[in-house]
C-alpha cells in the first residue's frame, strides 16, 4: 500500500518497542484488542493512513500506556 506523495505523513508508530518491553507478541495484542493481526501489522509498520479512536483506546488499555507512547511525529526535513 503506497501513499501518494501528496498524502505522506510523519506519524511514527512505536508498537514494536512497546511490545518488546512487555514481551508481548503482535498476535496476542491483536487478540486482546480485537483487531486483526494484518491491521496491527499495517499500523506497526507505519503503513496505516488512519486509526480509529476506539482501536487506539483498546491498544492503550492493553499496553497500559498513553496515545503519545504509541504514536509520535517524526521531525520534518
Amino acid at each position, binding site marked *: *500500500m503506497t*501513499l501518494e506523495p501528496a498524502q505522506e505523513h510523519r506519524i511514527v508508530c512505536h508498537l514494536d518497542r512497546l511490545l518488546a518491553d512487555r514481551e508481548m507478541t503482535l498476535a496476542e495484542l491483536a487478540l486482546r484488542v480485537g*483487531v486483526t493481526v494484518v*491491521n*496491527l501489522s*499495517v*499500523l506497526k509498520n507505519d*503503513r*496505516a*493512513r*488512519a*486509526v*480509529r479512536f476506539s*482501536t487506539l483506546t483498546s491498544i492503550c488499555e492493553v499496553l497500559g500506556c498513553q496515545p503519545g507512547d504509541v504514536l509520535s511525529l517524526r521531525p520534518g526535513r
Partner: protein
Amino acid sequence: MIRILGRFLLFLGVVAAIAGVAYAINGATQARAYVEVAVQVRDGGDLEVAGTSPDGTETTVSVLPEPEFDRGGISLSIPGATRGGSLLAPTDSLELSSFGSTVPEQLLGRGHLAVRGLCLLAGALLIRRLLESINEGKPFQRGNAARIAGITALVVTGALAGLLPVLASNLVLDRIGLNGVDSPVLAAAADAPFSSLMIAALLLALAEAFRRGTDMAQDVEGLV
C-alpha cells in the same frame, strides 16, 4: 450464487449476440426476396382485403367506409354474433411485405436485434465484473462506477436501436412508391423508450453513487 448469475448472464449475452448478428446477416443474404417491415395506416379508405370467392376466383373487398374506420381499425363482422358484436383489427401496426428487397432494407429491418444482442453481451461482461468485485467484498473498487455508466450507455443504445426498423420501413415505402404525403400508409413509429430512459436515469444515479463510494473507500483505505 453471484458467480453463477454472472456466468448465466454472460451465456445469455453470447447467445443473444450470436443470434442477433446471425439473424441480421441472414436477412442480408435474402436481398431481392421478401422483406417485412412495420407500417401503420394513414388513410384506410382505399385499402382492400384480398380474398377468394366461393367459386375460387380471387376478389378484393374494400375496407368498410369511414365511420367504421374512424374507430382506429378495420371492423370485421362475426358471423352468428348476437347483439352486434364485431372485431376491430388495429391499423397502427401492420406488417408490409414487399418483394425485391435490398440489402440495406434487410439489414435495417433486423439490425435492431443484432445491436441489442451485442449490447446484451457487452452489458453481461460489465455486470459480471461488477458482480465479481461485489463478491470479493470490494463493491467500490476503481472502475465500477465507469462500468455502471457503460451499462447505461448500452441501455440507451438498445433503446435507440428501435429506430432501425423505422428506417427500413421508410426505405421500403420509398422503393415501392408509397412514401409520399398522399400515401395511405406510413412507417410505424418506434415505441417511445420511456422505460429504458427511466432505467438509464436510475443507472446514472447509481453510477454517481458508486463514484462517491469509491472516493469514500479510498478515504478509509489503510484505516486501522
